[in-house]
């Protein structure tokens, strides 16, 4: 009988980091299904490209860093980053955009900062921001029109052709997202005029979302599932959504001059951002109060960037900006330790 000598506790929950990542990936499925249903197979192809790139990049880097490749690949973190990135990208962006974004996310945003757990910025969003700034044209013209608006939908071969070789046929089925479109049109037209626009052709005010509401619902569902599984706490998604709703209803109540609330909440990457990107544990705040501040900050920034910025969506930049602040927020929002009268604020002063 050989007895182990180990420090307590001797039992741990059999719930690993890989389990966390797997659950998150699982929770993305409803949203991905909705995306595919409304926008064709583009995202699936992008997921494939991004995932392959990410895994190859991860393996290569791990090899360079002389780490056990299999052990680290099994934590699914690279895969999750790739999927989050892919579903944020326009579905019919050219393949190299995805490869650059995915590779950059893994190699620079993750590993150059020390690997999983050390990266201060959300790698998927870094990759996204990079290609958005570098290749604005494909990034803004590669969203497909919702299938509702297309005669036959988009076939797999059409999708593959557009992504991998010829982009000639792309104009046939791509267009900006309704959020982006509305934003640009509202500057010159009223709500009714906007709805007469081809993108919203024939739709009622209530159908303005063109299928995005289902995508958002899918991500919301996945998010609620993770909440129930206690993968993250409610603080970040709730404060993010609440602050965005408040901003939109206080400053943008007039749909003749502003993007309406429904589009803000359901018409873009808001739900994906609130439940899957802002909650990325590595880069978010970790204290309860900190999470509230962090989420609210993202919500406000999303509104600000969407309203006054020129990019099609703002989730990535808002998240990255708040990533910056997260460690600082954490230091100033420490909980009050049991038995202490006051919570510690900030780091200990060097004397």
């Amino acid at each position, binding site marked *: 009988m050989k*007895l182990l000598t180990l420090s307590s506790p001797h039992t741990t*929950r059999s719930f690993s980091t890989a389990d966390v990542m797997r659950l998150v990936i699982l929770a993305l499925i409803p949203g991905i299904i909705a995306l595919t249903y409304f926008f064709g197979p583009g995202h699936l192809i992008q997921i494939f490209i991004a995932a392959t790139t990410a895994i190859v990049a991860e393996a290569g880097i791990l090899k360079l860093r002389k780490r056990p490749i299999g052990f680290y690949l099994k934590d699914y973190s690279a895969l999750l980053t790739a999927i989050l990135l892919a579903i944020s990208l326009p579905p019919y962006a050219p393949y190299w955009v995805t490869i650059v974004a995915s590779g950059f996310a893994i190699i620079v945003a993750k590993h150059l900062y020390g690997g*999983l757990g050390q990266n201060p910025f959300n790698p998927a969003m870094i990759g996204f921001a990079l290609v958005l700034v570098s290749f604005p044209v494909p990034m803004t013209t590669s969203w497909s029109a919702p299938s509702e608006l297309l005669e036959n939908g988009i076939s797999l071969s059409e999708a593959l052709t557009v992504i991998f070789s010829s982009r000639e046929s792309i104009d046939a089925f791509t267009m900006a997202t309704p959020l982006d479109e509305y934003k640009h049109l509202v500057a010159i037209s009223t709500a009714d005029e906007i709805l007469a626009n081809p993108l919203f052709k024939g739709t009622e005010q209530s159908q303005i979302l063109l299928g995005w509401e289902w995508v958002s619902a899918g991500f919301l569902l996945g998010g609620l599932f993770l909440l129930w599984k206690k993968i993250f706490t409610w603080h970040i998604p709730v404060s993010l959504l609440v602050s965005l709703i408040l901003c939109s209803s206080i400053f943008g109540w007039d749909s003749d001059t502003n993007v309406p609330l429904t589009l803000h909440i359901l018409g873009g990457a808001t739900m994906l951002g609130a439940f899957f990107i802002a909650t990325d*544990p590595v880069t978010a705040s970790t204290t309860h109060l900190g999470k509230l501040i962090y989420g609210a900050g993202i919500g406000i920034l999303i509104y600000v960037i969407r309203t006054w910025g020129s990019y099609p969506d703002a989730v990535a930049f808002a998240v990255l900006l708040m990533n910056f602040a997260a460690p600082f927020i954490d230091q100033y929002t420490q909980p009050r330790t049991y038995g202490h009268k006051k919570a510690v604020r900030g780091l*200990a002063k060097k004397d």
Partner: protein
Amino acid sequence: MNLITLHEFKGGIHPPENKEQSTSLPISTMKLPEKLVLPIAQHIGAQSKPVVNVGDSVLKGEIIAQAQGFVSANLHAPSSGTITAIEDRVIAHPSGMSDICIEITLDGKDTWTEIQGIDNYLEADASELIAKIQASGITGLGGAGFPTHVKASVDESKIDTLIINAAECEPYITADDMLMREHANAVIKGIEIIERIVKPKHCLIGVEDNKPQAIAALNEALKNFTDNTFNIQVVAIPTKYPSGGEKQLIEILSGKEVPAGGLPSDIGILCQNVGTCFAIYKAISKGEPLISRITTVTGEACRQPQNFEVLLGTPVKDLLSATHTQLEQVNRLIMGGPMMGFTLEDTNTPVVKSTNCIIASSKQELPDPAMEQACIRCGMCTEACPAQLLPQQLYWFSKSSNLEQATAHNIADCIECGACAYVCPSNIPLVQYYRHTKGEIKQANADKLKSDRAKERFEARLARQEREAAEKEAKRKARAEAAAKKQAEKKATEAIAPATSADAPAADLELLQKKLDAAQSAVKKAKEKIAAAEEAGDSDKVALLKGALAKSQEKMKEAAKAIAEAKKAAKAAPATTGAAAVEMTPERMQNKVDLAESRLATAKKRLEEAQANNSEQVDALNTAVEKQQARVAEAKQALAEFLKQESAAPSVDLDALKQKVLAAQTRVDKAQERLDMAKQQELDTVSALQTGLEKQQSKLKEAQDALAEASK
């Protein structure tokens, strides 16, 4: 139904309970082991001291090691036998270390020594009860092993609530559960005793709601206590680890937090473990010291997991064989629970007062820890931490040995419950990191203390050295000053010397004068001789005499010169120091005047002589005379001035003058009396007496005048 409102503590986890395995069988007693090994340090506080020697035979319940000081506990022989060793043995400690143990080889008779409980203990004094608890060597049986008498010796006015910790929140352990089920009455009686001691307003027994039978048994037992004066209440609390942590249980039952660095008594609470209550009951009512405890033996490798009433000192291997444990299946042997217990390396480790559980776990049951992964900052640990710490931050600080930040983030408040490590998806042994860091902090503090002391010592030494140097310097300076002073004094005295010799030159002057006189007479004689020789026509003689004359004249000149110089010096001196150096009195001044006058007279005489002789010294003597005249004038003037001052100043004090007047008056009166008497008797002394009287009267007048003058 709980009558009080429960509060929830933050964090906590729900690990699989694994308690059913060991509750199917009742508490059993084991057959006597061959040997018992009793570590002398089974409690918090000072080690007890063995009071037996190898070879001594002891009876069950006899004291074998004596408490040292107040925070310490006695140790008794759990059974009768012979002391066969007092030496280092492996003890129940996380590090598997050895310590002094008393080994008793049992005789198998299990003969009790004479024991005596306290009759009518409910009427007994608190101090008597505490003394009995202390004598019985009772320590907290929940885990920490703090001597119970110390805890019970609180100011009774401070304690508002007595909390009995029967939560038993750790998985696997069922010792308290079984105790309550089987000995509910004794437990309640034990609680009553504590209540007599600390006199709380009410008492809450906190039991996790996963022990319905224990709760029922306690409630049933409570029914027998119709005079439930202290308001004992059984409170079912929600099952959540670590609700049995003292601080957490207090929070659940009272909503209050024990202040950091404080004690429960600071918020009016005393907490006792339910097993301790049982031990107290046995000690007080029967006089049985703490020699056994209830211990759960469980784990997948045990064929027959159950609870035992185990004699202290029983080797763990005896417990394993009593439960038919498959030794080859045991992968981890844990003393205590799976959350906070520690692994044993040696099955010879004896059961001690705080051993509540032995888990012989198989590999499947408690698998070897998975490889540690990176912290993904998922925050699950934060959610689980009952102390509301930020375990992942503490982890980062621990990993980077940032003791300062770890301290600032209250690592000291970590109760090492293991909840954070339990939930961590990255399998990070967080508690191990914290223990290490706590150790480092302790070490650093100790080092700091040491270095502070060293620094203090060093600084003290520096200060001392500086002081010594300063003293030396001061001494040196003082010496130098003294030397300089002396030098200065010397100079001063040298400077004064000529002055003090202001009279000395006078002596010198006389000497010089004599020389001059001698020279003058020699000249005179020589001249006479020359004249005689010329008359006699002795030219040779004349030449010779003339030479001698020249010599004498030379001498005379020298002497005159010397006199002049001496006089000059004498004149300068009194002007500078004379007045200061010598106290001036009219007599002295008078003397000076006299001296100057006599010298003037001499000088005049000489001058006349010289003039008569037609001598060459006439001029010199003339000057000398003038000078002497000036000096006489000076001296006279000084005297006059002095006298004037003297009279101007009220030098004679009024009282003295009055005295004089009175004295004169008395004398006048007496003289008058005598005169009258003489006149009556017609004596011939009348005229003499008359003159005397007149004299006295004039004197009186003088004195009266002086007084009048002075008091003006």
